[in-house]
């Protein structure tokens, strides 16, 4: 089959196949790019996760695995490999999926998309080489004036340029799909979420270019000075915004999984899209929460930006926090699980790792990552938490329990639908989200606990054995770091299970033929009409979701004010 456009440009004669599960038309060029971006993402997760395990074992006081130099090297590699390379490669796969596949369109300029892929890969490898050579243990934040080897910055720049190319291909595909009329009306909600992610990506990458390019010139001696505060302002325009790409992307993934596994429809297109609009406008400015205890920046700037403009972007997340479980509840009730408040949840497909991973991601992102993030980002409360273990505790709740687990969950759909392979080791796959989820919940909580007790992040020796001035953190802090180690091992095990299942399925799995797809459909066949057709007013009542949201809200309010109480107890300063 070929699709010919009447846009005046010379369209590529794309080859399509029709997905037997969804009926979507899939451009084979897009499919190949999705596959390779996803595979490379998983490879970096494996490498980065391994470094994460080493780091966790070193910070376990009784084990204290690595020597100091290796610890700082491993921590730098861990941050870069998982936070940048795993997450962003996977996001590029999601962007191609949400544009070309969901819109039934051909992908714009696959050759250019491949160029982006190779640039990203080259950059990621170069940065890894720089780190492993040992001259670039500067943490992935690379705060100046500490200096890494030039090819460390160069690697990050190449990676960013490649990602920008991919984002451009995404936007190009939106244009093509619209011109060629491959869908009717507005784009699907999942695609809309991907648009939010892509918009934020453009700001992210631009900020990165503004700061990393001069830093590279500084590292080769062409520029003599980079202002350290200025660096941080611009760097976090990239570093933080990239976390907001993750949020937008994994919320889109939640909607996608709820739709594909349960036939859930958004309660209200209007409300969900409005929530994404709040992300587009205001998520990125909260980068300011990384600068709350820096010298000389006014409190007006700090408060306005760290609050996402009066918490309007948090409002967006709180809306998704109702509408995602709400859509699931509505779909389940429509299916007949109407007893009591929670039958819909008890009878949910907990044995399907796509669903369980998604739901755990939703709950843990809200309770662990979300609440702690808002608390940590309050201007004054930051004084008692900045740069303590509370910070990694918080973001393992967001980017690991939230984003990583959501991406793992959707992999269990991507492998049969896009790789057209059966998931192998089904039992292992079933347990994987629980093992990983429990491990991550543990590291998130215990790191936060240690941080509350003052333990420094990025720190090799909390016994300070070689320090001229002796000091020890309280005994409970050691206990917390030990428990963090135990749960870190569990998280690493969950990660390993994921990698084994995915690699085995992708390379050696049984092929999923069309006959097989027809006889054992992956997606529910009992109709998508789980929610009334027009707006949330027509939906069934959702007592379960309302209860969950109420519990969440009470926890949020209590925890928020408890931290102000903690703050009020430290030395007065002004």
């Amino acid at each position: 089959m070929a699709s010919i456009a009447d846009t005046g440009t010379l369209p590529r004669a794309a080859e399509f196949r029709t997905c037997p599960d969804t009926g979507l038309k899939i451009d084979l060029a897009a499919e190949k790019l999705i596959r390779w971006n996803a595979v490379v993402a998983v490879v970096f997760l494996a490498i980065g996760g391994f470094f994460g395990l080493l780091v966790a074992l070193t910070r376990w006081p009784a084990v204290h695995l690595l020597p100091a130099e290796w610890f700082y090297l491993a921590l730098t590699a861990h941050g870069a490999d998982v936070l940048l390379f795993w997450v962003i490669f996977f996001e590029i796969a999601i962007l191609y999926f949400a544009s070309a596949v969901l819109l039934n369109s051909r992908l714009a300029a696959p050759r250019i998309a491949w160029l982006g892929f190779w640039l990203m890969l080259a950059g990621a490898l170069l940065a890894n080489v720089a780190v492993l050579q040992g001259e670039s243990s500067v943490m992935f934040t690379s705060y100046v004036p500490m200096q890494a080897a030039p090819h460390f910055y160069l690697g990050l720049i190449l990676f960013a340029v490649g990602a920008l190319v991919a984002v451009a291909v995404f936007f190009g595909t939106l244009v093509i799909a619209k011109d060629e009329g491959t869908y009717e009306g507005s784009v699907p909600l999942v695609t809309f979420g991907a648009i939010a992610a892509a918009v934020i990506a453009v700001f992210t990458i631009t900020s990165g270019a503004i700061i990393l390019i001069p830093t590279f010139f500084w590292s080769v001696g062409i520029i003599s000075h980079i202002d350290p505060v200025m660096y941080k302002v611009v760097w976090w325009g990239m570093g933080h915004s990239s976390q907001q790409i993750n949020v937008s992307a994994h919320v889109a993934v939640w909607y996608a999984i709820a739709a594909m596994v349960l036939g859930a429809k958004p309660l209200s297109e209007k409300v969900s899209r409005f929530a994404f609009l709040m992300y587009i406008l205001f998520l990125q400015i909260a980068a300011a929460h990384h600068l709350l205890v820096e010298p000389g920046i006014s409190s007006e700037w700090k408060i306005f930006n760290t609050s996402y403009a009066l918490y309007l972007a948090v409002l967006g997340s709180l809306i998704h926090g109702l509408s995602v479980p709400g859509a699931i509840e509505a779909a389940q009730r429509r299916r007949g699980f109407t007893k009591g408040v929670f039958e819909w949840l008890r009878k949910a497909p907990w044995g399907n790792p796509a669903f369980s991973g998604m739901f755990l991601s939703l709950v843990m992102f809200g309770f662990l990552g979300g609440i702690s993030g808002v608390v940590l980002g309050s201007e004054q409360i930051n004084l008692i938490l900045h740069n303590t273990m509370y910070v990694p505790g918080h973001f393992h709740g967001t980017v690991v329990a939230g984003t990583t687990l959501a991406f793992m969950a959707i992999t269990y759909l991507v492998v049969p639908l896009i790789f057209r392979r059966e998931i192998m080791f089904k039992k292992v796959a079933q347990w994987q989200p629980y093992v990983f989820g429990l491990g991550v919940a543990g590291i998130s909580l215990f790191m936060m606990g240690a941080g509350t007790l003052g333990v420094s992040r990025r720190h090799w020796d909390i016994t300070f054995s070689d320090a001229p001035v002796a000091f020890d953190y309280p005994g409970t802090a050691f206990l917390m770091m030990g428990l963090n180690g135990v749960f870190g091992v569990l998280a690493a095990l969950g990660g390993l299970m994921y990698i084994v299942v995915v690699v085995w399925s992708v390379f050696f799995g049984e092929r999923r033929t069309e006959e097989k797809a027809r006889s054992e459909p992956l997606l529910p066949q009992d109709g998508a009409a789980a929610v009334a057709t027009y707006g949330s007013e027509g939906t069934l009542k959702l007592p379960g979701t309302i209860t969950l949201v109420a519990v969440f809200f009470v926890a949020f309010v209590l925890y928020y004010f408890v931290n102000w109480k903690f703050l009020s107890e430290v030395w007065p300063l002004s």
Partner: protein
Amino acid sequence: MAIHPPEKRIWWNEPLERSEVTWITIAFIWGLVMFFTMVFWHFTGEQNLSNEAYRIHPETFAERTEAMADQYTVREEGDTGIPVVHPPPGSDVYMLARLWEWWPILELEEGKDYRLHLSSMDWQHGFSLQPENINIQVHPGYELVLTLTPEGVGEYWVVCNEFCGIGHHQMVGKIYVVEAK
């Protein structure tokens, strides 16, 4: 479904369900509460980080710190050779960060105000006062000036909590808080 275009061409005019409107309203108000809590704390709270800061040459900052130490040193800390400095209450006190120490050690009087100056000689460091757990970023080339009121007689430590190279985990300073004379 969320993976298909909305069924209605025009979805913006959809009516909303009451519980959804209620939640959005509550969430919006909660956002305002959190926002104004930060503002409010500037007027009523006792813990607000000063925004008084200057650009300064590291050498200038070091000179000022040494001048203070020359004038007010009362003893040395054990056999470390680090001076313990007891400046008068209400005065300007300095602590500098460098690879890998906080210098000098301060002795302050409980309940008195001090104008504490912080800056770095080389890379970024993190002033992390333990066990109080007050954490402030310290930059080279910038001087932060804050007013601090120690509470509770005893020993306090200043851990470095910004990664500053291979000696990062050995970088510990100290503040003694003694009874006011």
